[in-house]
């Protein structure tokens, strides 16, 4: 005959505590894994702009990043940027160079597409549209959310790669061609996967689509 043993009060409390702990751990795991959970996705239907011709919408995993372009500051660079967007050349472009809370960089058309990442050559790819002359501005301040054309060590080597600053970087003033500024969605960019203090990101996040606002 099996004798049933009644659990003591303290054992019951411990049992309930363990169940609560497992529920908490389980839910936390799934909630924390979703890095986009508390990020505003920026619904385009709710946004209005005074100059929609110069608004670009970059869609990434966590939502839409809205960028206002500045053709008055750097006309050639903005013209190039619009061409690359309109030809959908940025779609699938990886954020292969990311410095945590500092900047994100993407736009290597040749070697930086998520479907064709080549780490041995990344950063040296060409768009096929030729190099641009740097359009530097000593007045443009690279504050948080500034978008600039990346270049090689030398000036006048801008092509398609661009970066977005996640904090003010005063040393970039007069060094890089400004393209525009993020007007909505900077918090989305802070969720882009970083290289953990390394220069390149392994299995990087990428641009799903990049469109001009008017074409949406």
């Amino acid at each position, binding site marked *: 005959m099996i004798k049933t043993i009644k659990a003591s009060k303290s054992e019951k409390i411990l049992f309930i505590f363990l169940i609560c702990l497992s529920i908490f751990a389980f839910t936390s795991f799934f909630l924390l894994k979703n890095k986009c959970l508390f990020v505003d996705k920026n619904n385009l239907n709710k946004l209005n702009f005074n100059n929609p011709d110069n608004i670009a919408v970059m869609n990434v995993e966590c939502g839409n990043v809205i960028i206002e372009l500045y053709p008055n500051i750097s006309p050639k660079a903005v013209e190039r940027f619009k061409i690359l967007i309109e030809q959908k050349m940025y779609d699938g472009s990886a954020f292969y160079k990311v410095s945590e809370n*500092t*900047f994100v960089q993407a736009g290597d058309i040749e070697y930086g597409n998520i479907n064709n990442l080549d780490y041995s050559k990344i950063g040296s790819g060409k768009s096929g549209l030729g190099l641009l002359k740097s359009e530097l501005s000593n007045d443009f301040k690279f504050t948080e959310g500034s978008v600039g054309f990346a270049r090689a060590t030398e000036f006048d080597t801008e092509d398609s790669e661009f970066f977005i600053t996640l904090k003010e970087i005063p*040393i970039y003033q007069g060094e890089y061609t400004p393209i525009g500024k993020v007007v909505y969605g900077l918090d989305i960019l802070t969720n882009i996967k970083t*290289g953990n203090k390394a*220069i390149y990101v*392994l299995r990087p996040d990428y641009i799903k689509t990049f469109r001009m606002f008017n074409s949406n």
Partner: protein
Amino acid sequence: MKILFLFILIFHISHVNADEIYNLIKIPNLEIYKLKNDNNIRYLSAKGDFKIGINKNISCDKVNINNLNSKFPLIEKNLNRYNSNFLNKIKLKYIVFCENLFISEINTGGIPDNKNRTLILDINFNKKYFERMMHHEIFHMIQNTHIEYFDENKFSSFNMTSFNYAECSTCSDRLNLDLYEKTDGFLTEYSKSIPSEDMAEIFSFLMTDKEIIEDKINSDKILNNKVNFIRLNLAKIDKNIL
């Protein structure tokens, strides 16, 4: 093969600090020391040790900020003698301060890098020659950007035909920086190493001890020709530097 490539990649991406300054001038562990200056030069300091270059052959240690603060007025005073237009022409924008600078295990006062518009300075370099050293290294940047004005064969032709420079600046034992009492065409022993060091020594003395040079060239025809060569060609870049 793929695993090997992945291993190399992980090793590679784990050992390079990527920040905004590294992104710009390819030197890690730097921070801004002073950004706004009349001649647009920007001063950076090493907040940590760094190794750069081919096979990481250039190394330097982080600066002691008190040490830098005490030496900065002298550095700034000397660099303020170059205007922004001239600095643009010689591709110099960033001065990097660090301590104990070595290239291929040889201690050096400065390393110019025209490509990244940077001059790395060891703030612990010999106090006696520190000011001269800065101008000496700047001359290398001048020559690198204006090689057509500072032709080494033409400059070497001012020497006695029996004299030969060494193969390279570090492959001779002609390293002393003291000014010769009797110059005989050369200001220091280091001037005898290679033509570009000879030119840089003349330029640095012209920037720091002009009167001494004026005195020396009166009795030294070779040196006189060399000094005129430097002056004449430098004036083609900027008339107001010397």
